[in-house]
């Protein structure tokens, strides 16, 4: 890394929330805001322009869906980390974003230190995951053993173990203890799982996106 800080692109249609997020990012010594947009249209241009390490994007915009922005960023800037900004981190929104290519989520109301830490954690390879999302992934991604030929993404035995422990509410550190691996390994498993989900659900993503469109007023 040539510079000693990471540039963050912020796309959020609520100006005060956007301001708040910008302040939180700027407060962190290793982060800087490289750009901000309030519409899908402006956001697309900013993404195409590039020059960011991390993208923070909302999902609902008056002129389109954040899912499209995430997918565009995944295509245009494959190296960038993408986080979805959400009020509730509910499974439906987060999963749709992950399928489009996001690898983390950020609670909108988190305080500035939480926001900065979460972004940096993601940059260092740590994707957050909630118990509800883990539970959902366990149901959706069948283990590979019985029929490897199936279309759905598959989990390795270790990934499955990790997801099961997450679903039971254990923290990464506790999981690392239980499985006698490092916390970094646990986070890399989670990231791996997110990537599988994103790769395998290009088709589904379109469907999810259209659903997201309907849910936009949230």
């Amino acid at each position, binding site marked *: 890394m040539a510079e000693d800080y990471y540039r963050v692109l912020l796309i959020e249609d609520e100006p005060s929330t956007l301001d708040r997020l910008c302040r939180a990012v700027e407060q962190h010594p290793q982060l800087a805001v490289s750009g901000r947009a309030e519409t899908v249209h402006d956001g697309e241009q900013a993404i195409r322009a590039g020059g960011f390490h991390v993208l923070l994007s909302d999902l609902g915009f008056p002129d389109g869906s954040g899912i499209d922005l995430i997918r565009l960023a995944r295509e245009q800037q494959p190296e960038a980390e993408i986080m979805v900004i959400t009020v*509730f981190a509910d499974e439906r929104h987060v999963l749709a974003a992950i399928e489009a290519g996001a690898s983390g989520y950020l609670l909108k*109301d988190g305080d500035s230190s939480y926001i900065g830490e979460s972004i940096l954690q993601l940059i260092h390879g740590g994707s957050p995951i*909630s118990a*509800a999302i883990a*539970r959902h992934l366990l149901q959706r991604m069948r283990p590979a053993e019985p029929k490897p030929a199936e279309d759905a993404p598959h989990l390795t035995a270790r990934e499955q173990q990790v997801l099961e422990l997450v679903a039971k*509410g254990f*923290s990464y550190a506790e999981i690392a203890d239980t499985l006698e691996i490092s916390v970094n390994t646990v986070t890399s498993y989670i990231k791996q799982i997110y990537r599988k989900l994103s790769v395998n659900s290009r088709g589904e993503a379109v469907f999810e996106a259209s659903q997201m469109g309907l849910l936009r007023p949230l």
Partner: protein
Amino acid sequence: MDRVADDNWSPWRIGLISLLSLALACLMLWGMIRFDQGLTWLDGGLMLNQAEYLDSDSRTPPTAETGWRYTEIPDEWNRRPHAGNSVWYRLRLTVGSPPRRLWGIYLPAVQQNASVWLNGELLGDGGSFERPLARNWNRPLYFSIPRGLIEAGENLLLIRIKSTAANDGLIAPVFLAPADFLYPGYQLKFFFRYTLLQFVIITLAVSALLLYALSWLRPSDRLYAWYALPLTAFVVYSLKYVVIEPPLGELLWDRLMAAALLWFPVLAASFIQRFIGSINRRIERASWTIAGIVTLALFALPDGFFPLPPPRIVDSMALLFGLYPVYRLLRYLIEQPRRDTFLLMTSGFLMIVFGLHDWLVTHGLISRVSGQFLPYSTPPGLLLFVYILMRRFVHAMNESEHLNRNLRLEVARKHRELEQSFEQMRDLERRNAINEERARLMRDMHDGMGGHLVSLLARVEDERSTNADIARELRAALDDLRLMIDSMEDVGGDLLTLLAMLRNRLEPRLRSAGIRLHWQVDDLPPFPELNPEKALHILRIVQEAITNVLKHARATELRIGLKEQQGDQGENGILITCEDNGQGFSREDKTAGRGLLNMLRRAGFIGGRTGIDSTPGQGTRVWLWLPRVAP
């Protein structure tokens, strides 16, 4: 059954068609007799109609030259006084030259057995001459003449005739002719008088059996058994004409035939009365009683008791009895003209006419050469009944097919109705569920968000409030909203995931407050009754406990536990605990008291129990116990 016409016929009209049908019956009888005569009096060949006779019981041609008397053939003994039951006839036959072709001798009718001798050679006989004597009531006889037996000049033909009773005896004309001329005539007569009769009898017997079976299988169709009863009597009686050498002994056989003949009209009357549905009990009782007494007498009394041979007494009675059912049919026809009744009456006429003819023959009032015809009168009646049965069968089949079709349609209709009502029920259930869920959301918003927003308003209006106060209140409102959203997450009854979601939410706050969390949970089987409402109450109770730790406890450690634990009465249940190492509080603390009350209320909603154990300086333990519904 069908009506003959739409409106009732006048008695005149019925009288006329009855007379016509009677005339038809007579015509049929006349036709039969004519046809039979054509087979009896062959047009051609050598007919021998003059003979000498000698009353003799000799088994071989009598040698005596004296005692022979002249007679004409046909010869009916009953017209001769003091006749025996065995007679020899001597016929002379003069030929110019011996025939080159095969010749035969044909006896169209003899009563009851004959043996034929030509020039001292026995040509053959019609069966046994001993007891029981062969009865050729209806069977013509034919014998081939061996080549060379007929000589030029005079030939002597001797015929022995024997009958059971003297007044039954008969010899009809005797024919001699080349076999190829004589034999076809004989065969036709044999078929008409014998084979055909066998056929009729077998048909009647089989029909009777089928009708018995039908009425046995269908008790509502007893009428068929009533029809089969006279049929049975008639079948027994008709055996007389086709059984050549009777079993059971001659006496018993004759009485049996007589009884069967008597019962035939009695049973026929019973059937007809049931057919028309009006039973004259007195007549029926009387006729059954008479027939019963006569039957007993026939089987119990010796031959000599009767002034006439019993068959001749009985056939007169049978003829008289036979008039009654025909009379009833006629009356019924006048009341209700139906085709079936009419046809049945016609077949009754047929039997009466044929029976009258046979009675006249038996009693010697008309020539016996033509024989008896009563059995030939039954097929029309039987055909009629088969027709009625067939029609009923076809009708029933059509009806059942029609019913089946309707039934199928009905079933399909019901099926649709059921589906519709199921659909309605599902719809109703769905609407109920939506309404319940809506009501719950309203309640939650009212209790949670509403309360938070109102107190937030109060804070904002209060000038002393700081931004931090307002932010705290806002955060509380957001937390509550998150709880509501989490409670609606489908966790598949997994209580652990539900608590884990709460941990995900609160852990950053605990961390920044410097509280170390210990996650001491057991993996539990699913909790099927965990619906969003229950989930929300549980989440609120636990969140309340954790928030209290954050606000008041000044703790450094927090243990959250989940495990299975039996209740006080040993019922299965789940225990959630929240234990800190903070400063604790005493009973007198009013704020804690209000929090506890809230938790108790919520626990009550979901059928659980909750409690707070705390001692100042030694931490606090909040517990929530939930019963498991027995599987």
